[in-house]
């Protein structure tokens, strides 16, 4: 057994479950711990270890571990119990070749490109090196547009004349990132939505295994540009747990400061984009203009506006002087005034209500089952916030509230984001007052080797719970396994379900209510559960590749 146990300090327990009884074990655990945090797979010692992590919305984590042989691994699917699990299972299937019996989409590729050969070994197995993979993929690479997500053949469920298939993406003006949604429209109404993601899959998890701990920090920071600091912070938290390093108090405060500034910038960005998606460009411009203040502060503190590269293992890379903190205080006060004025104006604007109220409605049950996190889940009334239930950084010392809204639609989620922005402003005001003195910059950058063990860290980025799993091998400069579970992954399951029955005009709003960050998940191609193949007659004179493969 190569399995090492999670550090006791996590307060977590790992239960070893035989692979045959996983469904029963999950059924039992799901009654008390309904939130599936993620399924982590590690390839070690010719075994594939699966770690199922559950939460009960109070931070009392429970883990189930299953050990499978790496030769034709196979296990029962748990997606019948928890809806969101199917996405995690597809990810594991793609990256490790584990077969999930009873999975709703048995033969669908998840995250790998269309050109990935069918018989090729899964990329994250330790037995496959990067060079071998590159050679293999270069030999089959053709510059062909990806194939359409909707198969044109199959059993027909719609009258052929009335349905138009509209490609939504991968390069669509509403989406800043590539993803493909094939929408079957009856008039303007959506009858089917088939998303296909994975355009931004960069293979970060494999890359991280080939970099040192410090270099991997810069790599995981670039998982997502908008919540980049949270990615690097979560990784650092996991690495510090693994390596047994504790940062100083001032460093914790500075990290929290940057994280909260990042939350404000991300939320005001999203609220502005809400206006853009609703066809209200002025709102977008107003909020982005206000947001520039925060970007200026981030640039002043960290030196860069977006990928801040501010954190390092054991502290932060630069101290923030008292004068700068004064500027932070002053600017945040100005921002508060400006943001209050604009957000109150636009959030009470009647035409905007019409676009957002009762659009993309979902219930709390669906959100839990899909595993939704962050403002999406809080918009349905569940106060799930990692900052509160599992405090990290300087959050234990700071007072703030977890915002929830009833309703579960685009409006309630936007309200949560607006209110959270004000909470973040409050947190920053407290940080500036309370920040302890000391040197937050570590003496040297961590360049050493790892210990044996594994660590698990969660934070609350603007989009919701982010979780990193880190495994170290003794004497190695590189992490043995980095697992990233981003908030967009489970939220997307929810958005795809919420899309049905609304009109084309609502698609941008519903898809983006979760604040999707496809570069974050970068691993998924999602097929909505239980969907059957469609056969739709296309309008005359439309070449098939133009109508589906090509966005425009």
């Amino acid at each position, binding site marked *: 057994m190569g399995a090492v146990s999670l550090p006791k300090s996590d307060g977590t327990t790992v239960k070893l479950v035989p692979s045959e009884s996983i469904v029963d074990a999950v059924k039992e655990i799901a009654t008390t711990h309904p939130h599936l945090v993620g399924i982590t797979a590690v390839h070690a010692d010719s075994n594939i270890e699966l770690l199922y992590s559950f939460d009960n919305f109070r931070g009392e984590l429970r883990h189930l571990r299953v050990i499978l042989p790496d030769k034709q691994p196979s296990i029962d699917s748990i997606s019948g119990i928890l809806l969101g699990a199917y996405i995690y299972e597809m990810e594991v299937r793609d990256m490790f070749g584990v077969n999930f019996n009873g999975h709703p989409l048995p033969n669908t590729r998840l995250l790998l490109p269309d050109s990935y050969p069918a018989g090729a070994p899964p990329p994250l197995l330790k037995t496959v090196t990067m060079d071998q993979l590159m050679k293999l993929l270069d030999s089959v690479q053709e510059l062909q547009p990806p194939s359409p997500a909707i198969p044109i053949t199959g059993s027909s469920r719609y009258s052929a004349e009335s349905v138009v298939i509209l490609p939504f993406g991968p390069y669509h003006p509403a989406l800043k990132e590539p993803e493909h949604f094939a929408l079957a429209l009856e008039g303007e109404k959506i009858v089917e939505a088939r998303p296909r993601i994975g355009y931004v899959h960069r293979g970060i998890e494999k890359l991280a295994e080939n*970099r040192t701990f*410090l*270099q991997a*920090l*810069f*790599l995981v920071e*670039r998982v997502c540009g908008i919540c980049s600091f949270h990615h690097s912070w979560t990784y650092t938290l996991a690495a510090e747990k693994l390596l047994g390093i504790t940062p100083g108090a001032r460093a914790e405060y500075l990290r929290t400061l940057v994280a909260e500034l990042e939350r404000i910038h991300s939320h005001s960005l999203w609220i502005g984009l809400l206006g853009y998606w609703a066809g209200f460009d*002025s709102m977008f411009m*107003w909020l982005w*203009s206000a947001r*520039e203040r925060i970007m*200026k502060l981030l*640039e*002043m503190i960290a*030196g*860069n506006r977006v*990928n801040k*590269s501010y954190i390092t293992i054991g502290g932060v*890379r630069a101290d923030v002087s008292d004068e700068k903190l004064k500027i932070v205080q002053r600017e945040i006060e100005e921002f508060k005034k400006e943001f209050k*004025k*604009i*957000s*109150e*104006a*636009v*959030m*009470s*604007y*009647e*035409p905007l*209500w019409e676009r957002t109220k009762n659009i993309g409605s979902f219930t709390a049950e669906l959100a839990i089952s899909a595993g939704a996190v962050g403002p999406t889940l809080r918009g349905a009334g569940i106060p799930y916030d990692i900052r509160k239930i599992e405090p990290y950084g300087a959050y234990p010392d700071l007072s703030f509230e977890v915002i929830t809204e009833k309703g579960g639609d685009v*409006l309630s989620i936007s*309200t949560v984001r*607006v*209110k959270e922005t004000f909470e973040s402003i409050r947190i920053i005001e407290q940080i500036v007052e309370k920040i302890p003195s000391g040197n937050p910059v570590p003496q040297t*950058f961590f*360049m050493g080797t790892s210990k044996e063990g594994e660590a698990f860290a969660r934070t609350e980025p603007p989009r919701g719970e982010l979780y990193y799993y880190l495994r170290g091998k003794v004497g190695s400069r590189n992490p043995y396994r980095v697992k990233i579970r981003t908030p967009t992954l489970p939220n997307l399951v929810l958005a795809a379900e919420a899309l049905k029955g609304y009109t084309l005009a609502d698609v941008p709003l519903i898809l983006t209510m979760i604040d999707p960050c496809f570069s974050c998940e970068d691993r998924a191609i999602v097929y909505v559960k239980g969907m059957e193949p469609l056969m739709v007659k296309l309008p005359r004179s439309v070449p098939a590749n133009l109508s589906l493969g090509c966005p425009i």
Partner: protein
Amino acid sequence: MVEKKSSLRTWFEALENLFSSPDTLPPEEAEKAFNGSSRGIPVLVPEKCIGCSLCALSCPSQAITMVPGGKKTIGNKVVEVKNPSFDYSKCIYCGLCAQVCKQNAIEMRTDLPPIIIIKR
């Protein structure tokens, strides 16, 4: 805060903006690629470099290669040194090289025009 629906405030906000000066930076200021708080571009100060290649080892995006930098007198010995050469199309401008350099031989400069490379 959003309990009351009212369109007046947005209408007023738009009207106010229509008749007030815009937020845009004047062109001569926006044209400067960096401002004082930007991190800047790594530039080598060859006199200080001793060719230890610590920067190249720590670079997260492997943008630094060590190239022969001529002869140099260190202490009282004349040695062949290698100097780092930055590939600016690979650099992620994180400033780690400047920070790990014990000799402070790498400067982060913010007074330079934007780097534009034309790849043919």
